[in-house]
């Protein structure tokens, strides 16, 4: 009888362990990306959730390679998001701009950022980085642009693109200095002069609008 009791208890323990393992597997698979994929979020280093922290009591120090990979993924995600935003705004401006020059500028924005995004996507695919698609929630400026028309639209559009490009350039400049990956450096080197052209053009067109 004693042996049977022990067997029964051990069977219960085994089943409980199986159920526990299955539940843990389900919860982590919902939170984590597929294996061998770096999820690139807008933040450079996403903080682990409480559940993950509890599940891994031992603190792992990331290897320099892993942390560099995370930074690369974040840079790619940042450029990707900026590209998607400029493409969306540029497409809107192609339809709503009031002058030929602003329309031509919007057309150039769409073409250049589409090309830049293709380079980013190719690099992300090469490094196994998963890039998120554009946010569907319109920003305050997007709403402003949607409601504006004529010369007012042109002014808001040029101001926004100018500010966006200035911000992105300064961030990429910093990341270029910090980057340890040659591919990322080469990508930034290719993109930066194009961003500078967009910024210069926005400034020139704004001056013309003011005149």
């Amino acid at each position, binding site marked *: 009888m004693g042996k049977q009791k022990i067997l029964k208890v051990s069977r219960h323990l085994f089943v409980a362990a199986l159920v526990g393992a299955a539940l843990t597997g389900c919860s982590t698979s919902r939170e984590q990306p597929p294996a061998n994929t770096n999820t690139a979020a807008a933040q450079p280093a996403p903080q682990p959730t409480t559940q993950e922290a509890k599940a891994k009591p031992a603190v792992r120090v990331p290897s320099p390679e892993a942390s560099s990979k995370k930074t690369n993924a974040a840079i790619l995600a940042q450029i990707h998001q900026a590209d998607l935003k400029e493409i969306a705004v540029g497409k809107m401006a192609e339809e709503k701009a009031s002058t*030929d*020059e602003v329309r*031509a*500028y919007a057309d*150039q924005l769409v*073409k*250049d950022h*589409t*090309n830049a995004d*293709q380079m980013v996507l190719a690099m992300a695919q090469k490094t196994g980085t998963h890039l998120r698609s554009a946010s569907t929630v319109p920003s305050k400026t997007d709403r402003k642009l949607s409601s504006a028309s004529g010369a007012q639209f042109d002014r808001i559009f040029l101001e926004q693109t100018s500010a966006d490009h200035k911000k992105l350039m300064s961030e990429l400049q910093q990341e270029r200095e910090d980057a340890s990956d040659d591919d990322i450096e080469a990508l930034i*080197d*290719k993109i930066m*002069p*194009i961003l*500078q*052209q967009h910024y*210069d*053009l926005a400034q*020139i*067109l704004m001056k013309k609008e003011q005149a």
Partner: protein
Amino acid sequence: MDEQSLAASVDTDRVPWGRRFAAGIADGILSAILMMGFMMAYSSATGAGVTMPLKALGALVYGVEALVAGSMAMLAGAGIQLGFSIVLGILFALCMSRRTSIVAALFAGIAVGIVVWVTMELVVLPYMDPTMAARIALMPMAYFVAHLLYGIGLGMTPIFVRGFSGKRRDERRVEHPAEALPT
């Protein structure tokens, strides 16, 4: 061959300056079309837009505004490409005679194309046209191939020189009976 017939033969190889000039213009136009056509096709295929090479060249005149200046910037770009190509075509044609072999001209043309490419990369793009430099950085290989094509175009100069030499077939037959077609 006596001295008199040798002099006559050399004389028939000479092509008047004016005709070589015309041949150079025609060849320059062909080379420009070959090069620009390739760049425009490549640019269109990669999504940069079919007119981007013209705008990038137009930036030599208009600066970065060439990207939004429309047809004027593109015309300026086309003018620069054609003008430069025609000048080189004329210089090339002036060095040719009716007897220059096409193979030698092709090698010389490709060498000139590479020299032009190096000059553009080291001098013109970084110092005179940074707008174009930024665009070319996205398609460096295509830009090199375009210059090879330009060189091949220049290598066709002997064909134009012969075509423009003004010797009609019947006249040549009189001067060189050996060239006469069999009856």
